[in-house]
């Protein structure tokens, strides 16, 4: 088992290095390239210069948010895939993103953000997400048992209903409102509010730590609910808490940054392929690689067609989708 620990330590080391390289890359590129050597001097002496501002006011917040949200979404994805024992589940499958969009739509249409300030938008997104989480949760509990398969079906159906509802609201709203909603939906890491960035960071780290309380339970659950019960796992409590954890991670991510797809789907799969199915290493690997992946995608999104910026969801979709297809086809070749 010493081998296992060493093996895991090496993986985490590789992921951390990968993450650091991506962060440094992201810090240095943009409309003005800032070479790495300049970083140190800028940090200590550069305050007030444009480059300092570029680093600290624009790039670092985005990288921090990308770290937190990429980590949170991948973590939520890997947890949900373990919970549902279904490889196609991702954080948005359950209708949580639809709920967040609904909250934001209603906010924009009723112009609540004029009265409550700019933080009301993520807040209403979060409320919408929570509402859907509670709805899906309560609809799936029968006789004290949280039925996982029903949870999935209800979540998928709800997300379709919500998507139509949201389109309805958009169809009858004014064009200025419409634009606001559409761009919110498209997903962006350019959040101006430091409080929200710090909040997301703490939520994601806490989420990671909390998920480790369930690493053995998740391993047991991979054998099936009945087998997990035979191993002494309190499956009901585990399902509920993990569902709530994954939902909260998703809810916070969507409310703050809009819809950024595929991070929660492709990254966990990729990690499983590389590292295996043991949750003790999978949880943190998914988190770190998701963080790196999102930061990388965001960097590409804001530098590929300067001075225009692509929505980050476009890059995560294309890259993430391609990775996913590649892994699936590799598996087929094995067979």
């Amino acid at each position, binding site marked *: 088992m010493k081998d296992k620990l060493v093996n895991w330590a090496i993986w985490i080391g590789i992921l951390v290095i990968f993450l650091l390289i991506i962060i440094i890359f992201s810090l240095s590129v*943009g*409309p*003005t390239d800032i070479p790495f050597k300049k970083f140190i001097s800028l940090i200590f002496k550069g305050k007030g210069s*444009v480059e300092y*501002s*570029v680093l600290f*006011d*624009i*790039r670092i917040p985005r990288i921090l948010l990308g770290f937190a949200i990429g980590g949170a979404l991948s973590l939520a994805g890997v947890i949900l895939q373990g919970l549902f024992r279904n490889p196609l589940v991702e954080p948005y499958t359950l209708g949580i993103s639809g709920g967040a969009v609904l909250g934001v739509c209603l906010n924009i249409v009723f112009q609540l*953000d004029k009265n409550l300030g*700019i933080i009301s938008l993520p807040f209403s997104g979060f409320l919408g997400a929570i509402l859907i989480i509670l709805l899906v949760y309560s609809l799936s509990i029968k006789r004290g048992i949280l039925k996982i398969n029903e949870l999935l079906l209800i979540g998928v159906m709800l997300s379709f209903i919500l998507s139509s509802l949201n389109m309805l609201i958009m*169809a*009858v*709203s*004014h*064009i*200025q409102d419409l*634009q*606001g909603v559409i*761009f919110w939906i498209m997903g*962006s890491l*350019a*959040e*101006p*509010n430091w409080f929200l960035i710090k909040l997301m960071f703490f939520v994601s780290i806490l989420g990671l730590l909390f998920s480790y309380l369930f690493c053995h339970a998740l391993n047991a659950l991979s054998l099936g609910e009945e087998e997990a019960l035979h191993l002494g796992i309190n499956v009901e409590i585990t399902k509920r808490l993990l569902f709530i954890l994954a939902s909260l991670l998703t809810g916070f991510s969507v409310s703050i940054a809009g819809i950024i797809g595929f991070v929660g789907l492709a990254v966990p799969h990729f990690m499983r392929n590389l590292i295996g199915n043991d949750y003790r290493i999978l949880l943190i690997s998914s988190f770190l690689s998701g963080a790196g992946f999102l930061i990388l995608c965001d960097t590409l999104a*804001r530098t590929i067609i*300067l*001075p*225009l*910026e692509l*929505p980050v969801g476009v890059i995560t979709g294309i890259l993430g989708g391609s990775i996913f297809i590649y892994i699936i086809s590799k598996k087929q070749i094995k067979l």
Partner: protein
Amino acid sequence: MKRCVILTTILLTTIFASFVFSLSSPQRIISLGPYITEEIYLLDAQDKLVGCTVYCRRPPDAEKKEKVGTVIQINTEKILTLKPDLVIATALTQKKDIEKLKKIGIKVIEFPSPKNFNEICNQFLELGKILDRYDLAENIVQKAKAKVLEIKRKTKNLAKVKVFVEVGSNPLFTITGDSFVNDFIEFSGGINIAKDAKTGIYSREAVLKENPDVIIIATMGILADKEKEIWKKYENLNAVKNNRIYIIDAYKLCSPTPVSFVETLEELVNILHFNYER
């Protein structure tokens, strides 16, 4: 000797004052809307313009300026590196981006979408004030207002023409009463059939019911010719019967500077009253 001193003092003070005054007016401006860019050129302040959107193409000189993104998605980092002392945003600029710029310490002024000709003029005057070109602005506005009055007089006694303006096709989108485009139609002696509609999304059936005499299609990201063909199928529409479906450059129709307003208005008057076969 005393007179000399007084004169010199006055001269120096004036020079100093105008120097200070011009210092307080922004010298490095970024425009986030094509019509604002156009207005800056009209006010002969293009030297102060250091950046604009990729869609700012009028006048052609604007294409040479540094680009900071589109009207809807701006690159805050690029803006920061251009070191502006003022950024002028439109109603289409995302609130998030405006917040971000303000947080970095950049001054941002938001120009809302003008709802009518008066607001177009007021915004123009405001811009003139900011750019220290108030006199020129007033001049241009007065001329524009005079021309508009003349046009209104010309068309006052002409038979009112029912008009439907199409600015989007999927879904069908028109202009309601709270846009300045409505003024185009009313000043040129027309009636906007969608003036009192709640939202811009209009149904083709409602158009058929209103039976406009003229349909104007703005080439805003839609295939205007294709739309014209579609309308032609509704043979009972007055506009179709009399072959009065016109295509107008969306840029002219939807970019509100006082000068372009007058130009487009004149074109519309022709279309509605003088330029058709009975």
